[in-house]
């Protein structure tokens, strides 16, 4: 304890008073903790917190995934059912259907975000006047709360009172009340893609912009000397050199959209029917509405493993583009 108090009161120590190297080294050995001790002392609280809040519950959940626990009938004794939950899930057509819905959502939203985001990045990279102001405006949607976004888009997309349908009607002549973006089986899957793209295209844009700016000018200068056409320059220089950045954006968006819950839960809550029921919404229903804890733990673990695998690849790409 004494040791700690002296360490935490550095005001006693002045540089002038400690200028003798031998003296100071001795003092450090006596009063200071060794670097190794400090390293562990500094890292331990973070690891402890993550173990308590993430790993311990995870291990508990793995145990529960082998049981038939149902919280609405928790008076029943805990019964171990082996791999039954996992086989139930993997042979359940409904679950495969939700995974398909999720995959379609991920593929279409990420593809649109890449096209729009990369296009915007190419345009902004031309450094026109006022580009940083407009970039900030474009970035706003991705900073908002996805839940709040999902909620206010339900107003914008209301067939009659919402402005979206009226705007479409203005351009196409289709009466605004003749279609419902969130209530129609044929449109709802596209609606969640649309709102997600509105929100996250700026994310792809920002990362691609960094990629474009990382390309040194002299490469283009050399290409000009060789009389490479702009089209050729794009395919041989710009695109290959921004691919790692694009990968980073695509992987992260894919992971995020694979586990998408908040925005879609408020925009369509999985409906109409189950046309926009992403796998996270299925999981929420199983765990927090049907209270099938054993079953939902198993489903959660399947999702965990998938995300963990993807996160592994993501970190590899992250280290590749890391700028030191």
């Amino acid at each position, binding site marked *: 304890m004494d040791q700690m108090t002296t360490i935490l009161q550095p005001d006693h120590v002045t540089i002038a008073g400690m200028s003798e190297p031998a003296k100071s080294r001795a003092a450090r050995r006596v009063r200071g903790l060794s670097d190794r001790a400090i390293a562990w002392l500094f890292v331990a609280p973070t690891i402890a917190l993550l173990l308590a809040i993430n790993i311990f519950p995870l291990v508990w959940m793995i145990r529960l995934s082998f049981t038939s626990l149902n919280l609405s009938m928790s008076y029943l004794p805990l019964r171990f059912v082996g791999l039954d939950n996992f086989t139930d899930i993997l042979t359940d057509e409904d679950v495969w259907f939700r995974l398909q819905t999720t995959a379609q959502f991920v593929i279409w939203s990420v593809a649109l975000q890449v096209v729009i985001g990369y296009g915007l990045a190419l345009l902004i990279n031309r450094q026109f006047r006022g580009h940083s102001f407009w970039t900030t405006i*474009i970035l706003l949607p991705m900073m908002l*709360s996805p839940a*709040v976004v999902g909620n206010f888009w339900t107003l914008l997309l209301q067939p009659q009172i919402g402005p979206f349908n009226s705007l479409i009607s203005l351009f196409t002549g289709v009466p605004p009340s003749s279609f419902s973006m969130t209530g129609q089986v044929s449109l709802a899957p596209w609606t969640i893609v649309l709102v997600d793209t509105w929100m996250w295209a700026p994310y792809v844009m920002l990362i691609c912009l960094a990629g474009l700016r990382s390309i040194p000018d002299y490469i283009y200068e050399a290409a000009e000397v060789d009389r490479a056409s702009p089209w050729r320059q794009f395919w041989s220089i710009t695109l290959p050199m921004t691919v790692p950045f694009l990968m980073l954006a695509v992987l992260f968006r894919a992971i995020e959209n694979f586990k998408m*819950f908040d925005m879609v839960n408020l925009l369509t809550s999985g409906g109409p029917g189950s046309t926009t029921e992403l796998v996270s919404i299925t999981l*929420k229903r199983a765990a927090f509405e049907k209270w099938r804890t054993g079953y939902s733990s198993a489903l*959660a673990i399947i999702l965990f493993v998938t995300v963990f695998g993807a*996160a592994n690849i993501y970190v590899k790409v*992250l280290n590749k583009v890391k700028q030191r």
Partner: protein
Amino acid sequence: MTAAVANSTAHSIVEASPRAKAVAGGLVILYAVITILPLLWIVATAFKSQSDAIAYPPKVIFEPTLEGYVNLFTVRTRQTPDFIAKLPPPETWYDKLVRQRDMVIAGPSKVVPRFVNSLIIGFGSTFLAVFLGTLAAYAFSRFRIPLADDLLFFILSTRMMPPVAVAIPIYLMYRQLNLTDTRLGMILLYTAVNVSLAVWLLKGFIDEIPREYEEAALVDGYTRLQALRKVVLPQAVTGIAATAIFCLIFSWNEYAFAVLLTSGEAQTMPPFIPFIIGEGGQDWPAVAAATTLFVVPIVLFTVLLRKHLLRGITFGAVRK
């Protein structure tokens, strides 16, 4: 792009021609305007009366009123005109506004406690995450830690887990510990999610501070902790502030954990806003007012953070 060659005498080869710039500017501004319209519509809806908000066709021009904001902060009851006529004259402008709709204010709504919850949980978890994150980031940046890469990956991977899946065991654990629907429970949970971002971001910032400064301080007789406090931290202030804002934004915006683990006491704004109900469904002007008040800090933070946004969304890997 096409004009680059033609103008190569006037401009550097790689700089776009004025015409290319103008076209790019026009397209980007068009996109920016379209993308901002939904937000402007919500800000405008907050100033509409109930009937203007649900008018068909939607109204672009309307008479602004503060009804939405008044409705957001109050609970009202409908009364007969006779009853209202007998009341003493309204004391405030909002009493008057409500009575014009044949209603009387019955008391404050729950929005202020929910807002306070958002603030307490947001700032509490941010403070803890940045504090723990700074220590860990310093250790990862300066010391040789065995399996450092694996530990860092472990730390990051906890953040990428699906929140609904994480919430299942947390729900069970919190039930045992009596932490369900408590601010402390939410602060701990958000700290755990934020600390991973904080470690990664701050490691990036601290890596950029030259080691020579600390080494000089150590030679001068500072202990490690003194060197950290007097040399490293002052130089990392910008990074710490940016990290804190990122953590605050996450906690402020978070919905999945909040909706699954809180129901009243500790409920924050995101699960509360969609359930602002008026007579006959969602009270859109009040919802829009709540959304506006909720989003304004985020807009300010985005402007403040714009130079560090890229770092924030790539966990500190991409800097410029």
